[in-house]
C-alpha cells in the first residue's frame, strides 16, 4: 500500500526528533499569544447544529499532522491542504513526528490543543492510540478531521477518504483487462501480506474477476514486495520467471509498481508484459515515456489534502458537523456529501497515461 513503508520504518531519529522538538517548543512560544480569541470560535460538536449558510471564518488556524513529517506522499497531501486553508484566508501549517509509530503523534496533538488551533487534520498512525488526545481536542472545541488513515470513529468528526476501496479494487481489474484484451494470466504485486487496505483492494479485485466478462483472465498469484525496492524487484523476477506466459502484473502500491517498472524496463520482458497499478506520476514518468507502462492510476493527493482542508474549515466555522447527509462545499472540487460515520470520499482514482502524465507533478 501507499503508506505501509513509512509506518514500517522503525528508526527513531534521535537527532531529527530532538531538532523537531526544539522547533516545536519554539513554535509553541510564538503562537500561544492569540489563543484565547481564536479558541472560543468553535463549539463542541455534540450540541451544535450545522448551518450550511454560515460563512467560513477568516483567520482560522488549521494544523496538518501527517503520519510522519518526511513522508513524501503526505507532504503533497498537506501542501494541498495548506493551499485550501490559504484560499480560505486562514493559516495552515504542517507538524509531525519523524517516525510513524503508534504513539508518536500524541504529544503533537496535545501541543496543538495547547496552541488552541481551530482544527487538526490528522493521518492517524494508529486509530486508537491517538483517540484520547483527539477526544480531548474535540472537547475543547477543536474540529478534528482525519484523512488517508482513519482514527477511531468517535475520535474525529469527519474522515476524508481518498476513494472507496471497492472502486479502487474494481478499477484495477478493468484497467488491466483493457490492456491485455481481456485474456491471459495476471499476477498481483502487493506490499506486505498484512496491509489492511491492500488486502481489501485485492478482495475486490478477486470479486471483480468473477464477472463473466473476465472469465478468460486468470489470477495466478499474489506476491508481496513488502514495499521494499529490493524485495519488490526480486518478487517481480520470481513472478516473471515462474510464469513464462504471464500477461500482466498489477501492483496497487507505489513502491511495488516503480520497482517492477524499473526491473521490466531493463529486462527482455519489456513490451511483452503489461504493468499497471497505483503509482505517482513523477515516479512513473520515465516508464510511461519509455513504453514500459501504458497506464496506471492514483487519486490526486493534493486534492485529498485540499478536500480535508475545506472540511476542517467548514467544521470550524459550523457549516457542517460531520453528520450523514450534510453537504460540504469544497471550492474547486465542487460539493461532497458526507456519508456514513462522517466519511467523505474524494472520488474515483485518476488514470495516467502518455497523454496526460505531464499535466501532473506529484
Amino acid at each position, binding site marked *: 500500500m501507499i503508506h505501509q513503508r513509512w509506518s514500517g520504518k522503525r528508526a527513531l531519529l534521535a*537527532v531529527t526528533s530532538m531538532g523537531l522538538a526544539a522547533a516545536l517548543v519554539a513554535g509553541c512560544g510564538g503562537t500561544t499569544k492569540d489563543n484565547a480569541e481564536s479558541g472560543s470560535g468553535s463549539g463542541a460538536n455534540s450540541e451544535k447544529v450545522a448551518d450550511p449558510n454560515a460563512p467560513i471564518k477568516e483567520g482560522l488556524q488549521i494544523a496538518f499532522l501527517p503520519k510522519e513529517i*518526511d513522508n513524501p506522499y503526505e507532504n503533497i497531501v498537506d501542501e494541498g491542504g495548506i493551499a485550501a486553508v490559504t484560499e480560505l484566508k486562514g493559516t495552515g501549517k504542517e507538524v509531525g513526528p519523524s517516525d510513524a509509530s503508534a504513539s508518536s503523534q500524541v504529544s503533537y496533538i496535545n501541543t496543538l490543543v495547547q496552541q488552541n488551533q481551530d482544527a487538526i487534520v490528522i493521518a492517524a498512525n494508529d486509530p486508537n492510540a491517538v483517540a484520547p488526545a483527539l477526544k480531548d481536542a474535540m472537547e475543547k472545541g477543536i474540529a478534528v478531521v482525519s484523512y488517508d488513515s482513519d482514527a477511531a470513529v468517535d475520535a474525529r468528526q469527519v474522515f476524508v477518504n481518498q476513494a472507496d476501496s471497492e472502486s479502487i479494487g474494481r478499477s484495477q481489474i478493468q484497467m488491466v483487462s483493457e490492456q491485455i484484451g481481456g485474456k491471459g494470466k495476471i499476477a498481483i504485486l502487493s506490499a506486505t501480506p498484512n496491509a489492511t487496505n491492500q488486502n481489501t483492494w485485492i478482495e475486490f479485485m478477486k470479486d471483480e474477476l468473477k464477472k463473466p466478462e473476465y472469465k478468460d483472465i486468470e489470477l495466478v498469484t499474489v506476491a508481496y514486495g513488502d514495499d521494499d525496492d529490493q524485495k519488490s524487484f526480486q518478487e517481480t523476477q520470481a513472478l516473471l520467471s515462474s510464469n513464462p506466459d504471464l500477461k500482466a502484473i498489477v501492483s496497487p502500491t507505489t513502491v511495488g509498481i516503480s520497482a517492477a517498472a524499473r526491473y521490466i524496463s531493463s529486462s527482455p520482458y519489456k513490451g511483452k508484459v503489461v504493468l499497471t497499478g497505483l503509482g505517482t506520476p513523477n515516479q512513473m514518468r520515465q516508464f510511461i515515456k519509455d513504453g514500459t507502462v501504458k497506464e496506471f492510476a492514483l487519486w490526486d493527493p493534493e486534492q485529498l489534502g485540499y478536500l480535508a482542508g475545506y472540511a476542517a474549515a467548514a467544521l470550524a466555522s459550523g457549516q457542517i458537523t460531520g453528520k450523514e447527509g450534510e453537504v460540504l462545499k469544497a471550492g474547486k472540487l465542487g460539493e461532497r456529501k458526507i456519508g456514513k460515520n462522517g466519511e467523505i470520499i474524494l472520488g474515483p482514482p485518476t488514470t495516467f497515461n502518455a497523454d496526460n502524465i505531464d499535466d501532473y507533478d506529484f
Partner: protein
Amino acid sequence: MNRLRALLSGRELSIVVALVAVVGVTTATNPSFLSAQGIHDLFLNASIIALLAIGQTLLVITRNIDLSVGSVMGLTAYMSGQLFIADHDTPTILVVLAGMALGAACGAFNGALVAIAKVPALVVTLGTLYVFRGIDYGWASATGVHQINADQMSQGFLAFGSGSILGIPHLTLIALAALVIAAYALHNWRSGRELYAIGSNPQAARLAGIPAGKRVFTAFVVSGALVGLAGVLHASYFGTINASVGTGRELAVVAAVVVGGVAIFGGSGTVLGAVLGALLLTTITSALPILGVPAFWQRAVDGAALLLAISLDRAVMVRLAERLRKERSLRRA
C-alpha cells in the same frame, strides 16, 4: 584442483555447497531460475549487498563493526539524486566519485571516534546510524525534495545501473573488481595481514609494533568509500530515491558477513566468504517465492537459513578443532 580446493577452503566451500543446493532445488521446481536472465538477476541482486559485505569484512576482521552502513548508503544515494537535481547532466563518473568521497568521509568520522577517541565501534556506529540518517532526513526536509525519480536522473546514469557487458551486469563487475582488490590486499599486503593480527589480539598486535589505530582508521575509510559506492549504485539501479534508502540494511550485511564465515570477534575470515554469504542470502530470498513459500513465512525461512548456516559452520569448526587436538596428542604420545 588442489589449488582450487585450497582457494575454497573450509567455510567458503560449505557456502558454495549450500548455494548449489538452493539453486539446484529451485531449478528443479522451475528450470527458468537458471536461465541466462535468471543468473543475470541473481548476480545483480547480490552485487550491492556484496560491496557492503566487502567493506564490513575489513572491519569485522579487526574486531570492529559498522552499523551505520545503511544510513551512509542512504545518505550517498540521496546525494546522487541531489546532484542530478542540481544538474540533470552530471557525468556518472562524478556522481560515483562524489558518493565514494562522502562515504569515505562518513567512514573517517566513525574511524576517528573508534581509533583515536577509543570508543567501541558498536557504540560509535550505533550513534552515527541515527546521526547520518538524521542528516539525510534533514537534507530532504530542508530542500523539500522528498523523492527523486527516474526521470530526474540522467539517462546515462540509469543505463549504467541496469547495463551489462557480455551479459554480466555492470554492478556485478564492480563488485567483482572490489572483491579481487580487497582479497589480494588482505592476503598479500603487509597492512592487510596486520588487520588480521589486530583482530586476533589487539594487545599483542600493538606490542608487535603494528600501528593498530592507523590501520583501523584506514579500514573505516575504505569501508566507507565502498558503502558510498554502493549507495550510488543503489540510486542508478533502482531509479527511485528517498531519505529512507538502505534502512535496516546493516543487519543484512552483518548476516552476510557472518554466514560468510568471518568471525564476528575478529581475526579470521575472507572477503570471498562474505561475498558468497551475500550471494547465498539474496539467492535464498529470490528462491523462496519461486518455491512457493507463503509470504508470511519468508522472513522466518530467511532467519532459519541464517541460523542453519551458522550452526553448520560451527559444527564443522568444533569437529575440526577436535581432530586437530587428537592429532596433536597422538603426535605427542
